[in-house]
């Protein structure tokens, strides 16, 4: 039996599939969604981005870890170094985001779950917004704050630096420091979560298309979770 390509099937005449086919797809969709959401939740506890600064007098290097809840690592030391060029302290950065981090992840996870399980064929794709929004939003936020910090150097600082854009990905040099900046565990977890949710959204569409109530379907759908109509067989 060849696998029917649901997307190509005319809407008015849905292709019917055996129960087993549907069940398998439903399990995959639910599995991907749950795993994706789980990864988002877990990423909350891991740093998303790592900045490393190495200089002769810091043989072990200095580390900054940026996570959804804040900045950890050698914060006080980097603040002390930054004050020489008039940079604001890390505690000034992204205070709203840091405070909201937990809520944002919870909200994203909930809306993905609700979107996939409850939304009908027209709104099913909405789950992609929080899924992709989390990692992309994070990067944009980091870029924004890096730019802001690099461009609001205090004029009374002991050392005068031209405004600059710190390196976000890759290697750079500031004074005697060699810096490297890379995404790390948390970020990769959220990317993996976004991919899994994307897969779930795509596959869900094929289930929708194969659904006997497809034509009548509207905003809501409960078929994914509980009921598969008799006539589906």
């Amino acid at each position: 039996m060849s696998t029917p390509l649901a997307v190509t099937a005319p809407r008015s005449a849905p292709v019917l599939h055996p129960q087993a086919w549907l069940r398998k797809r439903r399990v995959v969709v639910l599995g991907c969604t749950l795993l994706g959401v789980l990864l988002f939740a877990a990423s909350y506890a891991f740093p998303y981005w790592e900045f490393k600064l190495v200089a002769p007098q810091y043989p072990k290097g200095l580390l900054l870890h940026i996570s959804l809840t804040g900045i950890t690592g050698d914060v006080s030391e980097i603040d002390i170094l930054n004050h020489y060029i008039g940079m604001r302290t890390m505690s000034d950065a992204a205070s709203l985001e840091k405070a909201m981090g937990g809520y944002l992840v919870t909200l994203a996870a909930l809306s993905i779950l609700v979107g996939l399980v409850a939304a009908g064929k027209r709104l099913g794709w909405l789950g992609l917004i929080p899924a992709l929004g989390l990692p992309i939003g994070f990067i944009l936020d980091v870029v924004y704050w890096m730019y802001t910090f690099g461009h609001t150097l205090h004029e009374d600082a002991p050392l005068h630096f031209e405004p600059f854009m710190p390196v976000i990905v890759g290697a750079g040099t500031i004074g005697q420091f060699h810096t490297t900046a890379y995404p790390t565990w948390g970020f990769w977890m959220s990317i993996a979560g976004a991919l899994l949710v994307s897969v779930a959204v795509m596959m869900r569409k094929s289930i929708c298309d194969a659904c006997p109530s497809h034509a009548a379907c509207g905003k809501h759908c409960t078929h994914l979770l509980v009921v598969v109509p008799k006539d589906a067989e």
Partner: protein
Amino acid sequence: MRLAILTTLLAACAGSAPAPDAPTGAAPGQDLASIMKDRGLNEADILAAAKTYTPSGKHDEYVIFASGGHGGNIITIGVPSMRILKYIAVFGAEPWQGYGLGGESDKILAEGNQGGKVINWGDVHHPNLSETNGDYDGKFIFVNDKANARVAVVDLADFNTKQIVKNPLVMSDHGGAFVTPNTEYVVESSQYAAPLANVYAPLSDYDAKYRGAAVFWKFDKEKGRIDQEASWAIELPPYGQDLADAGKLVSDGWVFINSWNTERGFGSGGTGQPPLEATATKNDTDYLHVINYKAAEKLIAEGKGEVINGMRVLPLALVASEHVLTFIPEPKSPHGCDVTPDGTGIVVGGKLDTHTTVFEFSKIKALIEKGEYTGVDAYGVSVLDFQGSIRGQQEIGLGPLHTVFDDKGFAYTSVFLDSTVVKWDYNHLNQPVESLSVQYNVGHILAAEGDTVSPDGHWVVAMNKMAQDRFLPVGPLLPQNFQLIDVSGPKMQLTYDLPIPLGEPHYSQMIKADKLHPIEIYTPIGTNPYTDSVDPGAVASGKERIERNGTHVDVYMSVIRSHFAPDYIDVNQGDTVTLHLTSLEQAYDQTHGFAIDMYNVNVSMEPGKYEEITFVADRAGVFPFYCTEFCSALHLEMMGYLLVKPTKG
């Protein structure tokens, strides 16, 4: 691989043939053979160098804690490199550590004052590391000050002196600081007899009123401090007690102390009578003091004894009648008193006798239990038979002093007059195994964990009182000489000479470096090292302030690269000023200093540390203060002003 190259080179160099051509790639004169020739080095020198040389960035395997003698400090030295790592200030002011120069450590030094006398120095003799089950645990080290009968506690978490206790009974000490196997007690016994608690008595009352004492300082491991309330002492006859050691394993619960003046001589007074050195050596024997301190502990628990100058003391008559104290004759004016690793023997160095005497603990204990005494001394203390108490005597040489042990059943004794280290077998007293010349006049000796229940062997250090021709001349006052000896092979090999240029070391101990776990910075920020807690005067960033209360000015100041906040302080002449300094630094090795010109103030501000400086601003004028560590590129700019406004008229 590297070893193979070295061996090959050595083999090449050892032959009588001319030095081989430089290995390909080495610049002319830069190969090992040429360097050896140019510097006049032989194969043994190269081996010694290879055994001790420690390249940059590599760490030593052992750490020596050496007494700094009348430098009043402790010297830490890495082995095998013999690099000096740090001086730890104990009994005297030390500017680099900001010790005793206006800050919190003044309070520690002041603990050692007594009777209104300020004492600015100490004569550190015997460092002793804290022990658990007879083995070093790397947590604390205790030292005694012979000159003023004091004991100090140094915390090895931050290598800082945390407490000084003044012996309330005696004027000088020597048998200390020795710990019992679980650091229950730090034992400190007297050296020169004097009336207890520093009352006056003429020398004609020497026999009746002059006394020695052994103080058992109770150590509180949790608090890391000596509990003076729970400490007690035993009164001893005026015999000039000397070195001491605590028993271990089978002899746990006992303490052994030498003596050198059972003649009770006290000098000639310019009367033409023989001087003390003659009277004190008149008899052939002095007494090894054997103290059953568990029995003494019981008497203390029963409330026996009397309180003298705030300390509970068991009187001589009581410890004699209860046999807490027993004597055994020992060759006259001996020195070292060292318990063997298995606790079965006590080795006493003859000094004026060419032997070491090994006392057998089981025999001593049996005699005491059976009550077999040969008599009593002038104070009623029972005396045991010498021959019946010993394992035997070992012929060593002229002037045997101290003994340490290795892991293979050998003892190493320092021999002062012969200037040798003699290796011998303390279980089978035959001929000594080997003798090695050292330069010169070796005093104490130490071995890797060599006085614990499990010595490590490998390294022995001869602590020589004289250096003579060993180093470049530096005027008439010469450094001492520490010589590192490799004892791991069949023959002892001298590998390194280290000049000690700050005081005259006495005893030292060597601990495996991985037993030490020092902190890197003080956490949390504002920690007062002398209370081990965040000080109420500590200040957070942004909370710096100056508070005036009448004529008292409190300054809550933060210290961080590269500024003090506040950086100027206005006071009036005569005000009492308290500076509460908090280092907000958290990076390893990011130390600041704080010195006020003309006010004799300098403290060290390690990361996270709290310091408190109180002084009367009695001199009017403008006094810069500044950071005394080159902390950063803007170090010079890290300064401020103390402005003392003159009072009218």
